[in-house]
């Protein structure tokens, strides 16, 4: 109730301000304020945000009020003679102590909220979130389910310079993914965030927090989503070229629907594992077909569709690596090149790695002619 009144007052205050700044006015759908979100943390944070905002507004009205009153009345043009006072210790002490008191008043709820946010114990399930340039990987620790989540293909086509596609026609432009992370409603979920290459930050505003994903560190956070729905967010830490293009989608489902989703995932992963059996002999066509899709999911952002690379990214077309010794090629793909943007891709499956290397060696004008068997990767590089 109080919250709703605060919200209305906030909108009114800022609408007035915006009307001053911008004569065309603030239409109702021009978002002004933080969202309240769907977790107890997000609502606590929203409440805290509104308290501080109002404290600032009140202080601002008093201080600027006094200042503008003085500006209007104490002018030379009105014949005012300047007074000569310039010191008053009591006044200085008073206006040091009052702000100090206000800060203590703010610190109490802030401390409580922080203690709550950092209490990650007694979780019902744990999801490990790993940031990559430029996608997310989710691992359901207790279920053995894991998958990558990348920008959805329509956004991905439209986002390029002079793509000729009107981005307004795309639903959830830049905020949609191929595989969303699915969570159960009402359960305490512990998120473990880390990264594979550079620092990323996992942020869904409706959950009420963001947390950095740092290589070599595992950070803990938690959320209990109170309402089924789809909640969208983005990477919040600059992570290179495509930092703006690695969104996050959380789908909160009722417990039964969530269980069903987990079982479906398990079945799908088992089937994929079967299809990608690294122990069998793969044919050239199979590897080329699979390699192309792996390339388009993982390599194309930097090395481009024609394999010619871009500023700061080496080409694959005609490169000594992709036309020379196959062992070097496998080494670069699996373990990256330190000190460059070329990341390690050893997280991909054996068949994926073998296929993409085969594809790179026989596309873009490269004609090495050789192929890499998934079993080679499995037996010699794992």
């Amino acid at each position: 109730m109080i919250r709703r009144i605060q919200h209305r007052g906030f909108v009114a205050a800022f609408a007035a301000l915006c009307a001053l700044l911008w004569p065309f006015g603030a239409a109702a759908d021009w978002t002004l304020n933080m969202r309240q979100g769907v977790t107890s943390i997000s609502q606590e944070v929203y409440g805290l945000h509104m308290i501080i905002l109002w404290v600032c507004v009140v202080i601002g009205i008093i201080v600027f009020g006094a200042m503008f009153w003085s500006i209007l009345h104490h002018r030379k043009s009105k014949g005012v003679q300047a007074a000569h006072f310039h010191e008053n210790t009591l006044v200085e002490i008073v206006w040091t102590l009052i702000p100090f008191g206000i800060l203590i008043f703010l610190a109490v709820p802030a401390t409580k909220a922080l203690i709550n946010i950092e209490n990650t114990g007694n979780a019902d399930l744990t999801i490990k979130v790993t940031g990559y340039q430029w996608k997310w990987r989710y691992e359901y620790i207790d279920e053995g389910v894991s998958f990558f989540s990348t920008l959805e293909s329509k956004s991905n086509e439209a986002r390029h310079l002079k793509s000729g596609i009107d981005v307004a026609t795309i639903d959830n432009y830049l905020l949609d993914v191929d595989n969303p992370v699915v969570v159960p409603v009402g359960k305490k979920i512990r998120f473990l965030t880390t990264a594979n290459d550079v620092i990323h930050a996992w942020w869904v505003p409706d959950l009420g927090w963001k947390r950095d994903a740092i290589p070599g560190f595992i950070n803990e956070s938690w959320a209990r989503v109170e309402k089924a729905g789809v909640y969208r967010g983005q990477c919040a830490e600059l992570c290179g070229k495509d930092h703006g293009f690695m969104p996050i989608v959380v789908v909160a489902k009722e417990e039964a629907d969530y269980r069903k989703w987990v079982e479906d995932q398990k079945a799908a992963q088992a089937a994929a594992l079967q299809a990608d059996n690294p122990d069998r002999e793969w044919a050239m066509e199979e590897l080329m077909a699979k390699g192309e899709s792996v390339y388009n999911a993982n390599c194309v952002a930097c090395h481009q569709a024609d394999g010619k690379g871009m500023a700061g990214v080496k080409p694959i077309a005609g490169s000594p690596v992709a036309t020379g010794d196959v062992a070097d090629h496998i080494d670069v793909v699996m373990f990256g090149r330190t000190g460059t943007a070329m990341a390690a891709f050893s997280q991909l499956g054996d068949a994926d790695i073998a296929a993409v290397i085969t594809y790179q060696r026989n596309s873009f004008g490269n004609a090495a002619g050789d192929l890499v068997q998934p079993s080679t990767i499995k037996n010699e590089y794992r």
Partner: protein
Amino acid sequence: MSQSHAAHDEHHDHAPSGLMRWVTTTNHKDIGTLYLSFSLLMFFVGGAMAMVIRAELFQPGLQFVDPQFFNSMTTIHALVMIFGAVMPAFVGLANWMVPMMIGAPDMALPRMNNWSFWLLPFAFTLLLSTFFMPGGAPAGGWTMYAPLVMQTGDAFPFLIFAVHIMGISSIMGAINIIATVFNMRAPGMTFMKLPLFVWTWIITAFLLIASMPVLAGAVTMLLTDKFFGTSFFSAAGGGDPVMFQHIFWFFGHPEVYIMILPAFGVVSAIVPTFARKPLFGYSSMVYATASIAFLSFIVWAHHMFTVGMPLAGELFFMYTTVLIAVPTGVKVFNWVATMWKGSMTFETPMLFALGFIVMFTIGGFSGLMLGVTPADFQYHDTYFVVAHFHYVLVTGAVFSIMAAAYFWLPKWTGHMYDEKLGKLHFWLSTIFVNVLFFPQHFLGLAGMPRRIPDYNVQFADWNMVSSIGGFLFGISQLLFAYIVIKCVRGGQKATSQVWEGAHGLEWTLPSPPPYHSFTTPPVVK
């Protein structure tokens, strides 16, 4: 402004003329002019990059630049504006004003003064040349966070050395100011009689000396990580990427105050002049400045609340951060009390100073909001932060530099600037800077991360408003350059005192002042 005081300088005819005069000069006024001119040039270079950023963000979708170049724009815009525009402007103001304010003939270390300026053009040539290198200009953000910065192409060592050179220049400037103020004050000019601009600059100089070497250390570790096989910040080698952030922000937060304390000094000189009333609470202003400087060294981790610190660390940095509001509040209250029952007039410097007080305070409010850790978990790395630091840096630091320029231009050149144009410049700047930055608060709260070249259509409305404000604010600054050039070339003659309510040693000298400010020390009662 150069020709005019050269003309007044009868006993220095043997000094080289033309370009060599500026290259070899050891005169505090010449070097001040060099710093200020360089700063203005960099303000337009950095501003041009801001225009590219706002043009790309005018609409959703990519229209003009690719994401990598966009990241270079945000990175270099920040480095140019911080190290090339704001800091040199304040050093230029100090060079011009500190000797005149304390009754000295020149700076204490004039040759070092020359060197510390002339390093800067080389540093920025190195930095800006990276745009033409394979891999492009640095694009990992001005904060140079490892490991991302390691992905910089050939530009990497140029970035590091440019930062080193800027740091050396700043440290020498700081040493010079401390040496000057400690040794060259006129008889009777005790510390507690120093103008507040001098006080804020001494404290700033100590901040510079304490913090710049830390930055130099941090970037040197990046350099050895890249080229000499160390692993300070590489987790794979047993290092710690978060340690870079701790070291960087141990420099970075004092750096914030390096850019704002001299602004406090400028405003504390202007408000009493145009209120025709002495500054209220002089000693509390000095103590408040010193408290802010002390606190600036124990709040650094509020820039990195989301890295996953222990609860106790988050609480400590939250409490110390919000505590800064107390001395900052004292300063604002003192300025308002100075105006109270004064006899105010509103010439351009006063307008900019008043604009500073209001809009810097708005930036202070959002700073208080950001300091509250749980709320920061939402605000962090969004446009709310972008709005916050542009309120304190543009409507704060830059507005105070504009105020200082209008305030002291008549003293420097001997001519009054065009008051009508000055006021026009103030109103255009103030209106458009708010159209530019105020909506960015809304964007951040609505969930738009910073440093992204493209965005969902839900953010389109306010981005367009912000871009329009940005273009108009940018164009308005050309007016400033015009007013300055016009004033240097001529105009109504300025008196020694210039402003009716001006008090202090610098106003006892003729306008423009003689080449060596005070050849016989004045006596301060």
